[in-house]
């Protein structure tokens, strides 16, 4: 993956530039709202990508509870964090579109309120991950993620089952719904661009989470001494040398460089 990373960045940038061109210059101007409707080409793809990321978080959390795998926990954290970024964009572009069209920044209707609740659930998930200490933090956050995901279908279905200020769905929204084909093209290009950006960010965040875990483990092993380093299988050779020098017959003096206990840094 490391080899493909620059190529992946270039593809993402190209997709985003072309998607911007589609949204601003190719898609036709909407007849009643005018140019401000072009916010839609950023608003909708961000919402869909956020749903997809929260679904990834849901699956990774289930997998973590079943297998207790470090990788699925890192994926859950990465998808939740990037999902919150995308959901934040939805919550900011929405009012910026609503103000000139509805005349108000915000209204407490089912779609807007459930989206805000969704954002708050995943922000609380990240706060829990960041500040909680103890062995059960990952299990508790996985449970929160599984129950938190219940809000995603509620957000999606809210405009179908409640009368809302928010427009009706553009896909399978019944009579009169739907989009001009050129508008669809712009939506799909923007969806591709932002999906690619989300994958890039998730990959970076996932690698960061794994690397932070490894450093934290190294700190903990240093604090416990060279035996723990050897047991962890991640010894750098120096600890093994110390073991040979200090404990040739099991009665040697204490190791010199790594014997001082160090407190592992919080994640």
């Amino acid at each position, binding site marked *: 993956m490391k080899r493909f990373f620059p190529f992946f960045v270039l593809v993402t940038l190209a997709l985003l530039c072309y998607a911007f061109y589609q949204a601003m210059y190719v898609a036709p101007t909407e007849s009643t709202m005018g140019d401000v409707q*072009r916010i839609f080409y*950023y608003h909708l793809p961000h919402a869909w990508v956020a749903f997809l990321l929260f679904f990834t978080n849901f699956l990774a959390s289930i997998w973590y509870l079943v297998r207790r795998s470090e990788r699925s926990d890192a994926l859950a954290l990465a998808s939740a964090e*990037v999902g919150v970024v995308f959901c*934040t*964009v939805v919550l900011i572009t929405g009012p*910026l579109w609503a103000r000139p069209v509805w005349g108000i920044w915000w209204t407490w209707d089912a779609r807007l309120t459930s989206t805000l609740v969704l954002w708050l659930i995943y922000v609380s998930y990240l706060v829990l991950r960041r500040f909680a200490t103890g062995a059960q933090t990952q299990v508790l956050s996985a449970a929160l993620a599984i129950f938190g995901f219940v809000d995603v279908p509620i957000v999606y279905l809210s405009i179908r089952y409640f009368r809302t200020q928010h427009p009706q769905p553009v896909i399978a929204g019944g009579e009169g719904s739907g989009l001009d084909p050129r508008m669809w093209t712009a939506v799909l290009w923007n969806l591709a661009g932002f999906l690619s950006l989300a994958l890039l960010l998730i990959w970076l*965040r996932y690698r960061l989470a794994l690397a932070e875990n490894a*450093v934290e483990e190294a700190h903990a092993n*240093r604090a416990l001494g060279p035996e723990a380093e050897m047991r962890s299988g991640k010894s750098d050779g120096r600890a093994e040398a110390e073991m040979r020098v200090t404990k040739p017959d099991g009665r040697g003096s204490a190791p010199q460089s790594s014997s001082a206990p160090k407190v592992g840094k919080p994640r």
Partner: protein
Amino acid sequence: MRFLYLAYIATWTIHILYILYLTSRYRRLREERKELEKE
């Protein structure tokens, strides 16, 4: 058009800030790794 530009600028500001946040965490992690190697 003002709201359209504001929405696009806000979107890119959020993404760029997040990328900068990730970059700073990577940098901090690299320094921490170097310290560990020195020890």
